[in-house]
């Protein structure tokens, strides 16, 4: 499966200079995800003359910028080279061969441990941290958590991942967790699930058989799916949360559940059998800094949004980014009288992972997406519907 590759714009700059190379001699993959901050990737370049290696163009830390897409829409990510590997010498006289070059977003080059502090909300700290890098856009949802923040010999990414993100809280998020990630257009995103999941779907991805030369960017050639395992669900289902009062030392406890923190709508269900037993606990010791505690309580339920995951492969579509919403339709389309989809797997999903893959050797450009959702509405004909969480 592939597309007319000549329609794509592909440019690769190494150390600021464009690599003039036949695009049939290069392949690359750009991986982005809402679960990690820095995009990563892999670039495969044929270097038959060995000159790229000889002239140190691929040493670690070298800038490598990839633009891949159409004139009006494209992935454009500044990377740095992590390493360069020559698995096999194909030309003994030149040390030439096919190089494999793992890459990571260029912000990694600026990740030095810092000793500093902030007096701000978490969203304000992030706005300060992101000023030192030329992101395309910086999209930050406001938080509460006004306090002193100590960046104690941590890099910016470590500071965000370990200290700020797990505590981020906003009443505007309707008690949903935050995600921090850089997408395929070099946009820095710090957004809560309410913002992400209420976006208008940018496209409809349709799983159907391709007939003849019928080509559509949004046709899903193949997909697989999985549901969260019972054991993972137990971690989120009916959790008891303990804390110690700072006023009198007494133990305070509350119960929350997998239905919380995710914008449950009426008639929403989770495909997981319900019971009332407590299945997990969290202990917060003394309840200082209540915004941090609220944020962390929500953050610990973050993975529960991935109840149903679908892995699908489509022709490369640069408009689809990690963090986008898409509508997925299986071969069975249409709606029931009660508004639910005829197929329970059709519906709106959040793009968790987006891999843009260009393979010049085999002349194809595809995307691998993992899309996810937490809730679904099931038709009234489903007799087991009332045994699900959410009933």
């Amino acid at each position, binding site marked *: 499966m592939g597309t007319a590759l000549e329609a794509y714009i592909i440019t690769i700059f190494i150390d600021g200079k464009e690599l003039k190379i036949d695009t049939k001699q290069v392949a690359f993959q750009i991986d982005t995800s809402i679960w990690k901050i820095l995009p990563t990737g892999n670039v495969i370049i044929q270097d038959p003359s060995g000159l790229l290696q000889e002239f140190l163009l691929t040493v670690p830390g070298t800038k490598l910028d990839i633009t891949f897409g159409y004139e009006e829409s494209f992935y454009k990510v500044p990377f740095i080279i992590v390493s360069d590997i020559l698995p096999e010498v194909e030309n003994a006289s030149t040390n030439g061969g096919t190089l494999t070059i793992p890459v990571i977003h260029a912000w990694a080059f600026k990740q030095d441990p810092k*000793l*500093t*502090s902030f*007096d701000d909300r978490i969203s304000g700290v992030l706005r300060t941290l992101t000023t030192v890098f030329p992101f395309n856009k910086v999209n930050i949802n406001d938080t509460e958590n006004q*306090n*002193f*923040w*100590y960046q*104690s*010999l941590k890099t910016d990414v470590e500071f965000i991942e*370990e*200290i700020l993100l797990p*505590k981020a809280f906003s009443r505007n998020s309707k008690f949903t967790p935050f995600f921090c990630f850089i997408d395929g257009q070099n946009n820095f995103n710090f957004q809560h699930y309410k913002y992400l999941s209420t976006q208008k779907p940018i496209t409809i991805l349709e799983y159907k058989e391709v007939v003849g030369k019928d080509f559509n960017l949004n046709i899903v050639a193949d997909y697989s799916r999985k549901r969260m395992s019972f054991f993972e669900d137990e971690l989120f289902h009916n959790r008891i949360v303990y804390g110690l009062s700072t006023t009198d*030392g007494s133990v305070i406890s509350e119960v929350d559940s997998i239905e919380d923190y995710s914008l449950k709508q009426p008639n929403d269900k989770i495909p997981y059998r319900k019971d009332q037993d407590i299945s997990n606990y969290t202990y917060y*010791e*003394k309840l*200082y*800094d209540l915004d*941090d505690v609220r944020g962390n309580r929500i953050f610990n339920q973050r993975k529960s949004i991935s109840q149903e995951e679908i892995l699908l492969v489509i022709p490369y579509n640069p408009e689809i980014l990690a963090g986008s919403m898409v509508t997925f339709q299986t071969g069975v389309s249409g709606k029931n009288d009660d508004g639910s989809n005829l197929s329970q797997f059709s519906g709106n999903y959040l793009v968790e992972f987006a891999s843009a893959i260009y393979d010049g050797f085999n002349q194809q450009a595809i995307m691998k997406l993992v899309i996810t959702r937490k809730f679904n509405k099931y038709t009234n004909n489903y007799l087991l519907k009332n045994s699900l969480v959410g009933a």
Partner: protein
Amino acid sequence: MKLQNAIVVNIDDNNHPLSTERQKGRIQIRILPFMLDVPESRLPWYDPFFRGAGSTGKFGFNPPKVNSNILVYPTTDSLRHGYYLDGDYISGFFDYSIVKAKLDTVTELSESTYSKIHFQLLENDNLHFYHESTGESGFIHKSGMYTIYDETGNVTLHSSNYNLKLNFDGTMLFTGANNSKVEVKSSGQIAFNDHLTIDV
């Protein structure tokens, strides 16, 4: 979380940014090296580990000196909260010769061998001590005045100007200025300067 080294910056939590958290026995600390460049106004206030406030009506306050090295135990990864454990051990500050010089002024003390004497040298230069073998214990004021109890419970109170020995059996000997003396004998007589004796 683990124990960290810190410096005491302030022991008066009337300076705490939250008015509800003032006069709560906390001290302001700078964790090393993580808070080296943090402005003082942003440094955290830590709770006492000992002499805390575990129940109503029972709490204490005995903070370490400002600028002293202490150990702290952060309880949150934000480092904003935790306990202070009092003085950190710095070997250069531990000097037994200072203590021995004070103990040697106590003529009633049978011996002052290191490791037999348990002691606490306070920051105001006073010394509490206890001898684990002889059972003697006492207090030496920075002025040189001292009190010593022997194992039986006899006590001597001494300064450069007087000496008072109170015995468990009820006898007493006071020696004051110009060798003046008052003695209470076991017979109940009180003797003044060995010349005058009064029967009680």
